[in-house]
């Protein structure tokens, strides 16, 4: 079969590539577009490290021939932060030590993002179900569940205060404070 031209709406921007029938979405993202956030832990749909959002729904990109998703919207971990400002899920993963080696993290964050987009007030059970296709060998999952629940809360707080656009500012301020906190122990000012 010949190669074809595929169009994707990639993190909000229209992009084209020439794809062979066997080219996976994961390989298109990593090898053609240089978006290496999505990882290849198994290439067989078992680990979730390659998870991205496909028209808003989480999908394991290693199993999807890219020619079959022509015209779809694809969101990857690279599209979440606003410049240096982390989004709520990313910030919660940092704050709650939900990332260790980091290899499962982009996929985990995309599964969590899909959940929060569809269910702003998830239960613990909702969270464990949402990430049940994402393997993490380092954290033992508990910090990840805590992070996702806390991200849901910060998103709700942001929404309740009616700051659609200013959610990013809030994150920015928060990040600044956290930055000072993290630096303080090194300068010996955070005792107690």
């Amino acid at each position: 079969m010949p190669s074809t031209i595929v169009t994707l709406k990639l993190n909000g921007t229209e992009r084209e590539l020439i794809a062979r029938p066997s080219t996976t979405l994961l390989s298109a993202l990593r090898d053609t577009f240089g978006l290496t956030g999505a990882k290849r832990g198994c290439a067989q749909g078992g680990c979730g490290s390659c998870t991205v959002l496909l028209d808003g729904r989480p999908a394991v990109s290693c199993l999807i021939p890219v020619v079959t998703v022509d015209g779809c919207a694809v969101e990857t971990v690279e599209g979440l932060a606003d410049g240096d400002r982390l989004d709520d899920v990313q910030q919660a993963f940092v704050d709650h030590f939900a990332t260790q080696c980091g290899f499962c993290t982009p996929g985990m964050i995309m599964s969590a993002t899909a959940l929060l987009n569809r269910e702003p007030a998830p239960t613990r059970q909702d969270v464990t179900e949402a990430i049940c296709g994402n393997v993490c060998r380092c954290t033992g999952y508990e910090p990840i569940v805590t992070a996702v629940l806390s991200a849901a809360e910060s998103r709700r707080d942001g929404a309740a205060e009616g700051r659609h656009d200013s959610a990013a500012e809030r994150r920015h301020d928060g990040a600044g404070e956290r930055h000072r906190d993290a630096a303080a122990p090194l300068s010996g000012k955070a005792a107690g």
Partner: protein
Amino acid sequence: MGRLTPIDTTYFKDERAGDFTVIGSAVQRSDARGHVTGRTLFFEDLTPPGLTHVKIHRSTRHHARIDRVDVSGALEVPGVLRVITHEDVPNNWYVVLRLIGVGPDDEPVLAEDRVLYRGEPIVAVVAETEEAAREGAARVVVDYTDLPAVLDVEAALADGAPIIKQAGTNHFVYEGHPCRRIRFGDVERGFAEADRIIEGRYSSSPIEHAPVEPTGCIVVPQGDGRLRIHSNTQAAFFTLDNTALILGVPPTSLRVVGGTVGGGFGGKVDVIVEPLACLAAMLTGRPAKYVYSRAEEMQVSSTRAAEHIHIKDGVMDDGRIVARQVTLYVDAGAYSRHSPYGTTKAAAHMPGPYTIPNVHVDCYCVYTNRTPSSAMRGFGVTIGDFALESHMDHVARELGMDPLRLRLKNAYRDGDMKAHRKIASGTALVEVIQSAADLVGHDLPPEYRAMSSAERPEG
């Protein structure tokens, strides 16, 4: 950020002030932002132009003679650039522990006339694409004559067992001895004096680290003739030196770029992918990637060793352990890798953190036709601890005694002579048990609460 855990400073109040600013506080990882934004660069996130791919044809037998290897089918696959056999490897035999003086070299990079485990690499295929490399590897044909396989450590050491290793024994040799030994006091006299003899046998299965990121590397030839190795190794310099030895090149001609490991747990300290990827890059003049598939990661990469451990204790009715004999077998699998060292660690860890006057320990590093085992989080120690502490519980049950009290009674105290003939110092098992008992609300009688690591009670 506030303190998470209160710190009891009484134990070291004479040595330093308790004015900690970091211990007990949450300090963020320096790499967390990179991880959550996808900006952390793992080795496979690099795509150098002209990258080639390495895939391996592996043994389908546990133990067999190789009669013939036919690579012609692989060379016919479009995109296959070349095949690599043992004849292409400058120094095909190696042992990673050579760097700390352990020998002999007992493992081939690629099998020569024999395979010792299922999954052993025989031929490497280098191709333009991963698909072509995989197809090429599948087209290699190997004719085997099966040989008797040894799949159990104790069977491997039994009289008449087939000898699978070139060195002539199915065990590593420690300074002329078949095992790592500890001899302290007179264990037979201890057994004779004891009120009770309590024995236990413990065993474990191999454990796979299963990192989410498979083991692999990308090697990029540089303009100055050096090779730059982007690897997820946990041991950059170990990899550099062993790869240089295998390739027969000065270490200065290699450069390892690493430090970002997508889960290792000890599984990424062997030197498996780098030598072949370097060779592929040298032979084609192009960058080369060798990364395990998930199936290879699970089936072929080293595991934590399976162990068999027999413990025989001579015990007094009051709970004192007066003699302990341990026989421990580490299943190294087909090749040494880190197991001779792991077995030494096992011996160093016996008889546990207890003061026992008569100790006799034999720790065997045994070769079988199973997947080689190697490092994994506390290897040599973890399974031994499982056996020792299971046995302590078993002894306590036999004596009808609280297991914590049994441990408190026998725990090392400062100044005790250990079985390894070192004086115990800085011991803290007593205090740790007391604190643990407090935390779980376990009632310890005043006599046990008053104990201290600084002194041994009478009796």
